């Protein structure tokens, strides 16, 4: 192999000291030297190939601590895709158009409709319109939280459900109050009833899923991502990732998060059954090192577990706080079990009540099991009680943060409809987390977010505004963090909490040559320009995997 020297660059190493350099030598996918042009070229020797970057900015490949790549890939390749901002008639038109062109027994699966439509679609009139648009083909649409589904009559029939069907766990088949008939809105665990059937109809073939995964990773590469943590990795997905890697086709480091319990529909084994076989899927780039818990749902449907009540409503009364999917002893016992399998846990907690339960659980596990090097994560840490911020630091729990979930936008507005303003205004206390010493890591939550654009989240952390400009306002400006801290959350910080920092996350000698060339120096531009950053090319282990 020949050494390649990238020189005349504005190189942000993103190492612990935030060093800058102008040149980097790469051999066999690893960084062999870094510094100024002269020293790096001298170190590389005469035979080296040199690439003049003409002053362009290089930085480490970005790391996404939270996405659902395979689900996103499937949506792009095979599903009805529309933005959450699409109006009601637009959704029906999208369904009509998709159903007209679809063939075979497949379902029209897709989304994501905005949560603000939840009230309207929860009616028999809306169901009739969806039935009209779908010409008898089963339809299952996700909302933008991914926690709820809107199904037509054919889908409910195919899944064998009606208003009388027993729903497992904390789910609901919503019904029309006057007739008692199911409206087609399925909340939380009830989504499993249709997902199980649509999954079989559309995705029974593993080759389809592998193609979707590879496509999604290509999309991630196009946004500069070279490492990510899949936030809910089913058995089949894990097998696909390992297979891609063994074929030499996996273009990113992937940390897998294995479902610890069934809250929504899970194809294949989960929990201990999956933990027991995880090592057969470990490859050079695939790390099955986490387990996933869902302790609650989402605030817009009032399924987040909150310490203080939601806004009063007819359906929920004056003082509803939601609830957790597991009790404290159940959770603590299961976390201990994960740890015995060498797994850290990523816990979905959108409410401050579930965050508290998770921390109580970690506390108990430490008391009963003693110290551990495993670093657990709380996703999405939207609402966190100030008292619990200190506990997160003490327990070395990472905050997995996705600004798209809280900066002023359609999500934030839907949350505001359910949660009192004084709590919404305190969402995502990132600066407090950082100052308390909590490790923060940035995630896209794609495809809950329409794209895995980490620049959007990075700007959101710095400005507390919606980078698209489509929504005014700033959420908790005092919780803004500086750009260097935000960059760290999308590079080395994420690598550390995912257990990948020996491989990637910064440009340092010995690490994998995972880097991006971008069109601007994000540390030196106006903060409201960060999201405009364009990735010119993405390099994984020294090889170009994307070029604009």
């Amino acid at each position, binding site marked *: 192999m020949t050494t390649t020297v990238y020189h005349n660059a504005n190189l942000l190493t993103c190492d612990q000291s935030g060093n800058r350099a102008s040149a980097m030598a790469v051999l066999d996918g690893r960084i062999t030297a870094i510094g100024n042009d002269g020293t790096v070229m001298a170190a590389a020797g005469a035979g080296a190939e040199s690439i003049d970057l003409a002053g362009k900015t290089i930085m480490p490949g970005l790391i996404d601590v939270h996405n659902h790549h395979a689900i996103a890939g499937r949506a792009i390749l095979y599903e009805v895709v529309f933005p959450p901002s699409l109006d009601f008639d637009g959704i029906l038109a999208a369904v009509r158009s998709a159903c007209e062109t679809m063939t075979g027994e497949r379902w029209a699966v897709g989304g994501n409709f905005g949560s603000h439509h939840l009230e309207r679609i929860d009616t028999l009139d809306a169901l009739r319109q969806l039935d009209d648009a779908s010409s008898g083909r089963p339809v299952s649409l996700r909302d933008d939280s991914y926690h709820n589904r809107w199904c037509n009559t054919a889908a409910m029939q195919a899944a064998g459900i009606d208003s009388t069907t027993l729903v497992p766990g904390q789910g609901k088949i919503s019904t029309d109050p006057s007739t008692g008939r199911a409206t087609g809105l399925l909340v939380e665990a009830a989504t499993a009833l249709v997902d199980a059937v649509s999954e079989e109809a559309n995705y029974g073939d593993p080759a389809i899923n592998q193609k979707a995964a590879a496509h999604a990773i290509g999309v991630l590469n196009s946004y500069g991502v070279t490492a990510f943590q899949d936030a809910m990795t089913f058995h089949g997905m894990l097998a696909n990732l390992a297979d891609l890697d063994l074929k030499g086709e996996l273009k990113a480091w992937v940390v897998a998060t294995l479902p610890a319990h069934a809250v929504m529909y899970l194809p294949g084994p989960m929990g201990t059954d999956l933990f027991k076989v995880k090592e057969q899927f470990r490859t050079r780039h695939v790390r099955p090192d986490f387990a996933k818990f869902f302790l609650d749902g989402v605030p817009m449907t009032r399924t987040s577990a909150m310490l203080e009540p939601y806004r009063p409503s007819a359906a929920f009364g004056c003082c509803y706080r939601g609830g957790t999917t597991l009790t*404290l*002893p*159940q959770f*603590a*016992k299961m976390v201990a079990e994960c740890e015995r399998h060498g797994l850290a846990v990523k816990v979905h907690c959108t409410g401050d009540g579930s965050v508290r339960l998770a921390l109580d659980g970690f506390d*108990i*596990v430490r*008391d*009963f*099991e003693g110290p551990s090097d495993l670093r657990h994560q709380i996703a999405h840490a939207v609402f966190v009680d100030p008292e619990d911020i200190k506990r997160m630091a003490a327990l070395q729990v990472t905050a997995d943060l996705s600004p798209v979930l809280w900066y002023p936008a359609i999500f934030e507005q839907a949350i505001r409809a359910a949660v009192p303003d004084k709590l919404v205004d305190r969402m995502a206390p990132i600066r407090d987390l950082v100052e308390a010493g909590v490790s923060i890591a940035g995630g896209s939550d794609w495809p809950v977010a329409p794209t895995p654009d980490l620049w959007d989240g990075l700007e959101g952390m710095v400005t507390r505004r919606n980078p698209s400009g489509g929504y005014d306002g700033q959420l908790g400006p005092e919780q803004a963090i500086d750009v260097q801290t935000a960059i760290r959350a999308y590079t080395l910080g994420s690598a550390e909490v995912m257990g990948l920092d020996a491989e990637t996350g910064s440009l340092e000698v010995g690490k994998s040559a995972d880097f991006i060339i971008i069109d601007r120096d994000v540390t030196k531009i106006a903060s409201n320009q960060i999201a405009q950053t364009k990735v010119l090319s993405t390099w994984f282990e020294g090889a170009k995997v994307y070029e604009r």
Partner: protein
Amino acid sequence: MATANRAPVTLLTGFLGSGKTTLLNRLVRQPSFADCVVIVNEFGEIGLDNLLIEHVEESMRILNNGCICCTVRGDLVDTLVDLAQRRAQGMLSFSRAVIETTGLADPAPILHSLTVDPSLTPDWVLESVVTTVDAVNGNATLSAHSQAARQVGVADLLVVTKTDLTDGATAVRLRTRLAAINPQAEIASPTDNDLARRLSETSLAAAWRPIHGAHHQHTHEHDTNGLIAHSVVFDEPVDEAAFLDWVDLLAAMKGENLLRVKGIVAVASDPSRPRIIQAVQHVVHPVTVMARWPSEDRRTRIVFIVQGIDPSVIDRTFKRYGVGSKSSAATA
């Protein structure tokens, strides 16, 4: 749960050749066991055949004192469900049961079924566990077989057999060792005339024996196959809710290591009436309230018979979770 008509169960366990069948023979002749059903794994040659008066069917016989004797067909749970059904239908009449386990059995799964299996709990209630220990071979058996130590660990009453075949020093050594494994269990001799009465006195619902010479958080550990009897003694009354939450937590996190937990607990809200707690593995029994303290000693005293954990976990988590904020946490 309908408790009124539940049949109390005495679980009779003990290692191979430790005298279970002999003890069973003796027990079923006692008037208080006259209308019991005896569940055995097989009709032994000596066993209860000498009492046999009638074969009802292949797996069921009537003894000459009126007892019903049946063998386990397949699964013990199925046998118990079948018996309860026959009793409910008036086909059989009995007021209590004795289950004789096989000598090699780990008693914990049977205890677990009796206390949590929803097909059993409406009809059966575990009353006591009686374990026979052979005075001649007991020491060697306890060292060699972890199941034997577990059988001793779960017992309410330990019946030491064959004492006439051994010397005094060996018997004393064995008793010391039994007390180390399970300080809460009573130790009896099979020839004791009041054995049947003591069995019902030892019932799970009310049993509490003072731990003689108990020290604060004292642990006995001998050569007992990793079984440890660990006691927690606490001077101040505890917050009842916090304490019970802690016991639940301990059972959830470390249930597989908890063979048996028994304790008398002083609670701050009702200090004159102690609580009796009992747990077997992951299962915590409903707390019972005693009308008064059995002795002058009004301290909380809990004995944990554990295997495979460091008992400091118990102490540490008790102090953190079990005492509650209302107590002054003045622990030794």
